[in-house]
């Protein structure tokens, strides 16, 4: 494959357009693209160009939590928007097991797919198989997680774990004035998004000597785990000795807030929290009025990845890394020196929608329980 490096080429900006369509609040180019100090390669995809309609194989990692379920819906929505260009859409689900996912991809390749769209179960384990897929002449688009080798995929579609964690951690540190005892609630131990976010947050907190990390507990992105773990920490430390809770998602963040409420700490007395994604988290923050910053890891990357896949098959140049916008949501009066709101909390929270709704799907009037679209075959 021929790739060429360009300095923020116009082509990349044009290729980003589908990602912008779903944006609310901040509507500019993704900040992770603007502020990325590295160059972004634009990939010449003419060797994959065909007449269509196309067969796309989608190797999904899992539908193991609410975010992943919404992400899958976003992928399906993307396919339905391109139904005239896609004749078959074959889906496999690895249930979080990278070794099953390798077998799934082998099975997809035997069904003569034109392109492989993949959400890798782990960042590294899929590298050899995706490299083999590319060498076989089948283009690979990875979404949510990339693999190490640049030669193992054409393009990577993401919403940047590091950026969202740096911004939420910076907001927390500045909200506390650089002084205080903070609990870290990352997601699933060993899962690359969780580890990347945790590492990025620690980078930030380490620059504030007055911030003390009281405890770091993995939660598997489960509200129940978040609540149970935080209840134990409150029991041990005392609620008054916890100044802030950094969670990489509202999935467990909402559990933490409920633990404080369960311990008798309510309203604005609840310490500052971070964590987006889950409407229930936004609702808790809005109802109680504690300082809050939510940044969604937007599941609309699914739709963006399908659009980009069609571009690849039509021979349109695509960026090697496609960043999708995310919104910074902050409770009123709690913006900080570095972190401003794209949308204020009251304008973002969906009080009339279910708490389990995952935000940022990009699907109009999205309801996970009733979602249905027309798909090929």
């Amino acid at each position, binding site marked *: 494959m021929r790739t060429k490096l360009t300095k923020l080429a116009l082509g990349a900006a044009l290729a980003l357009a589908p990602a912008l369509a779903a944006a609310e609040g901040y509507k500019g180019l993704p900040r992770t693209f603007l502020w990325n100090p590295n160059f972004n390669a634009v990939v010449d995809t003419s060797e994959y160009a065909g007449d269509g309609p196309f067969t796309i194989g989608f190797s999904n990692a899992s539908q193991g939590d609410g975010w992943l379920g919404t992400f899958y819906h976003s992928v399906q929505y993307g396919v339905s928007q391109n139904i005239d260009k896609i004749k078959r859409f074959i889906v496999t689900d690895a249930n979080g097991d990278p070794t099953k996912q390798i*077998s799934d991809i082998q099975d997809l390749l035997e069904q003569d797919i034109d392109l492989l769209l993949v959400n890798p179960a782990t960042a590294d384990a899929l590298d050899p198989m995706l490299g083999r897929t590319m060498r076989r002449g089948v283009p690979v688009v990875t979404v949510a997680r990339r693999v190490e080798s640049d030669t193992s995929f054409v393009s990577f579609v993401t919403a940047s774990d590091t950026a969202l964690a740096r911004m939420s951690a910076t907001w927390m540190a500045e909200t506390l004035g650089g002084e205080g005892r903070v609990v870290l609630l990352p997601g699933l131990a060993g899962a690359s998004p969780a580890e990347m976010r945790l590492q990025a947050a620690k980078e930030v907190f380490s620059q504030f000597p007055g911030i003390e990390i009281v405890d770091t507990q993995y939660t598997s992105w489960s509200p129940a785990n978040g609540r149970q773990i935080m209840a134990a920490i409150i029991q041990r430390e005392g609620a008054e000795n916890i100044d802030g809770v950094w969670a990489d998602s509202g999935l467990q963040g909402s559990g933490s807030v409920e633990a404080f409420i369960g311990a008798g700490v309510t309203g604005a007395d609840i310490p500052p929290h971070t964590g987006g994604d889950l409407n229930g988290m936004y609702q808790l923050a809005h109802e109680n009025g504690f300082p809050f910053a939510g940044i969604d890891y937007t599941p609309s990357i699914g739709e963006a990845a399908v659009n980009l896949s069609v571009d690849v098959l039509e021979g349109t140049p695509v960026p090697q890394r496609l960043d999708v916008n995310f919104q910074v949501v902050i409770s009123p009066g709690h913006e900080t020196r570095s972190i401003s709101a794209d949308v204020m909390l009251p304008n973002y929270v969906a009080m009339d929608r279910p708490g389990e709704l995952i935000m940022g799907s990009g699907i109009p009037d999205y309801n996970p329980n009733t979602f249905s679209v027309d798909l090929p075959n």
Partner: protein
Amino acid sequence: MAFTNTNRPTRRLPLDPSLIVVALLLAAVVAVGFALSDRFGTTRNFMNVLEQAAALGFASLGQALVVIVGGIDLSIGAVVTASTVFMAGVVDLHPALMIPMIFGTLLFGAAIGFLNGFAIIKTGVHPLIVTLGTASILNGTVLIYTLQPTGGVPFWFEEFAYGRLGVIPISGLVMLLCFAVVWFLLRYSKTGRAFYAVGGSPEAARLNGIQSNRIILMAYSAGGFFAALSGTYFVSRTGVGDPRIGDPMTLASITPVILGGLVLGGGKGNILGVLLGVFLISLISNLLNYMNVSTFIQWVIQGLIIIFAVSIYVQKCKKL
């Protein structure tokens, strides 16, 4: 290993009802596959399935040996994981050690299995508890060492998982060879038959002059050895040591054992049934990928087949 003077088997293994049941189910899955997809019945697809089945095959073979002596090994998945991290971690730092580390990893697995057996014999605690404890220790140790996939192996080592001899996958061939050797030893060697004797009744076996403890140690060591071989295959397939890769393998390794008609509790069963069980599970997963149905349906179908196979097997046994 000692061999008897006569080659007369103690049981008519090929006529086991479990073999017939699982073989019929296998045939049914293949027939459905042929009917539903014109791409399913290709040599290339069947060779892919043989390649994909290798990890489950190794782990199930190890589990089967432990089950035959009346035990169970819930540390199989943890040994798989620890093996991958151990191998990839060391080889990443010292690539020249790739070949010695293959043997080192297999030895490591066997040693963990030996310790399992030793603890079970010395403490008298049920194997379920001991191996669960071992799994917890290994998993915890691995996660202390690394939370994310780590290490690496030379590019050429991928050939074990992906390489072909003609059209036949090397890993699948190694798995078939392992099953053949174990089947032969269980059927024709004195030690092999002692496995069944110990599983049937350790006390009676002891009275017949069989060193039960030695057999139990051998079974658990073999269980660990094959779990490590499964881990070695995963390192070859993924290129890294993954601290969570073995998680599904413990229960997965028991499924073909049950499907193959081995009696949990020990003393009975044919290792070839386990091999057919491995193929059945792998083919179901493969076929359902061709049918474009969700993993959740795969679980349901797998569960139904296990219950169906075992119930037929039990009924057939009553008639015999």
